[in-house]
């Protein structure tokens, strides 16, 4: 509204309900929302709430919190929280930290950029099974990696699969492309002239990164971290195939699956799933609270 426009005439005393609703944005267009809204309520909200109330009705009795008490008193179940965080946090951190310098090298235009970007994105298509098979065959006792090490004079093959490391590697391989793509797009959203201005004013390369680019990039990095953390936190198939599913990599999703669909204790399974969501949301909330303290103005990149 420009100031030169006259004020609209005051609404009539008896404007119809339809009219008044339309002024608040409620009109026939909103009927288009109905299928989507029904969909998300029936297929997402209802199951989640159903699972929540199911988790308070333990199969073996023991009060509404029976399942949760059982979870925290059984070390085999309780430790899954720590095991999952020990995998998810480092994996997300590695993916984000590795993306920053690589995205830095790849911004701007140069020949072969598309090739390198495509090569970095290809791991998305690998899928967990090929990655798992590849890791088992490449890093295994007779695999190429250990053969190279033996040739270089290492005494014994290193054990890198069917334990913690195998799962971590598979999380890095599958998670890195996502982190890299997001970081690259956040980075290319920062106007290069800001850095050029700093350079003109005599800021060194390091200062420009430290005081110009990093603060502008940090909110995006927080989001990238959250998304890769969610991916890593819900690790399931690779924890079974390249991990040690009943020991070192007995993560929460395995615990939830096994209780619900192997032992048919749906109620305890739902409780584990709810705790899984809770832990994940807690980590994300921490990151987002930290993000809220950062600079969140324009990055000059929006066209």
């Amino acid at each position, binding site marked *: 509204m420009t100031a030169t426009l006259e004020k609209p005439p005051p609404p009539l005393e008896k404007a119809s309900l339809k009219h008044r609703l339309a002024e608040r944005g409620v009109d026939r267009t909103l009927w288009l929302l109905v299928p989507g809204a029904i969909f998300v309520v029936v297929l997402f909200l209802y199951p989640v709430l159903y699972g929540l109330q199911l988790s308070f009705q333990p199969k073996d009795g023991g009060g509404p919190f029976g399942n949760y008490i059982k979870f925290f008193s059984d070390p085999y179940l309780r430790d899954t929280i720590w095991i999952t965080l020990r995998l998810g946090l480092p994996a997300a951190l590695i993916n984000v930290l590795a993306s920053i310098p*690589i995205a830095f090298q790849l911004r701007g235009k140069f020949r072969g950029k598309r090739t390198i970007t495509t090569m970095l*994105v290809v791991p998305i298509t690998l899928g967990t099974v*090929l990655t798992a*098979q590849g890791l088992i*065959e490449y890093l295994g006792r007779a695999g190429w990696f250990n053969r190279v090490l033996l040739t270089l004079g290492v005494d014994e093959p290193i054990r890198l699969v069917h334990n913690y490391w195998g799962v971590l590697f598979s999380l890095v391989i599958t998670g890195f492309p996502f982190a890299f793509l997001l970081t690259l*797009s956040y980075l290319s959203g920062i106007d290069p002239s800001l850095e050029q201005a700093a350079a003109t004013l005599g800021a060194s390369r390091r200062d420009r990164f430290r005081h110009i680019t990093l603060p502008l990039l940090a909110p995006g990095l927080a989001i990238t971290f959250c998304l890769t953390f969610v991916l890593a936190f819900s690790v399931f198939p690779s924890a079974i195939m390249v991990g040690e599913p009943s020991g070192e990599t007995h993560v929460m999703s395995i615990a*939830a699956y096994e209780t619900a669909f192997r032992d048919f204790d749906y109620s305890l*399974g739902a409780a584990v799933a709810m705790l*899984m969501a809770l832990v*994940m949301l807690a980590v994300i909330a921490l990151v987002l609270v930290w993000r809220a303290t950062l600079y969140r103005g324009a990055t000059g990149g929006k066209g």
Partner: protein
Amino acid sequence: MRIAARPGAWITWGLLIFFMINLVGVVGAPLLNSFAVQWFDTWLPNGYTTSWYTEAWREFDLLEVLLVTFQVAVAVVVISVLVGVPTAYALARRQFPGKKLLNVLFLLPILMPPMTYGIPLATVLYKFHLAGSVTGVIVANLVPAVPFVIMTMTPFIEQIDTKIESAARMCGAKTSAIFLRILAPLLVPGILAASILVLVRTVGMFELTFLTAGPDSETLVVSLFYSVSAAGIRATQTVDAMAVIYTSSMLVLLVIALRFVNPTQLVTRLKEPS
């Protein structure tokens, strides 16, 4: 291309090349193994054959599995576009009370790990005897797909000028004509991009399909997973052959997707410096 002689750049490129070499190893080992007659304690296999592919095709009933995968993926794409695009239109064009809440509700299924809502969802689907069939798999896969279409289409619709619609209405177009003859052609690129992304996600979605699939409704990923867990009695080559089939079909899909969507512009749309 100009590589400055700074140590930081060299370290970065070095690490990148190290990662790439290992990646080639990780991909190359099963790829080579799927063609190997036998491969034990040596650098390279002692002979090559393509018979593992025919064996995998027969043993895992791949035609059937691929048909199910195709059915599920196409159904999920069509339904999620039909439900998602109108919702995205309303979200892009109107401000109304409760919009924020609705947005959060649409965002959650994308952000939450599939396992957390998949387990209650599968329990509910089993309760209504939907799980274990192709229908159940489709329904479960729709849960993240519909919000995904909404989230990708809303910004796309926002950037279509409302004046075009107003002009059409001024010229006497009916609502149906506006939708079919003005909006639909403008929306096609966005719908195409969203559909391909949903297709890739659905073909690759393991958790939800795994939780809801029965023996006749396994998609390629799930059947692949089962083939690994039952691998004790078979040669690893058949599993590798199947994994290679899966990966190459995903690769084809991704290459098609990249022709329509520029992945680095998913977050911010930046004008390319010419």
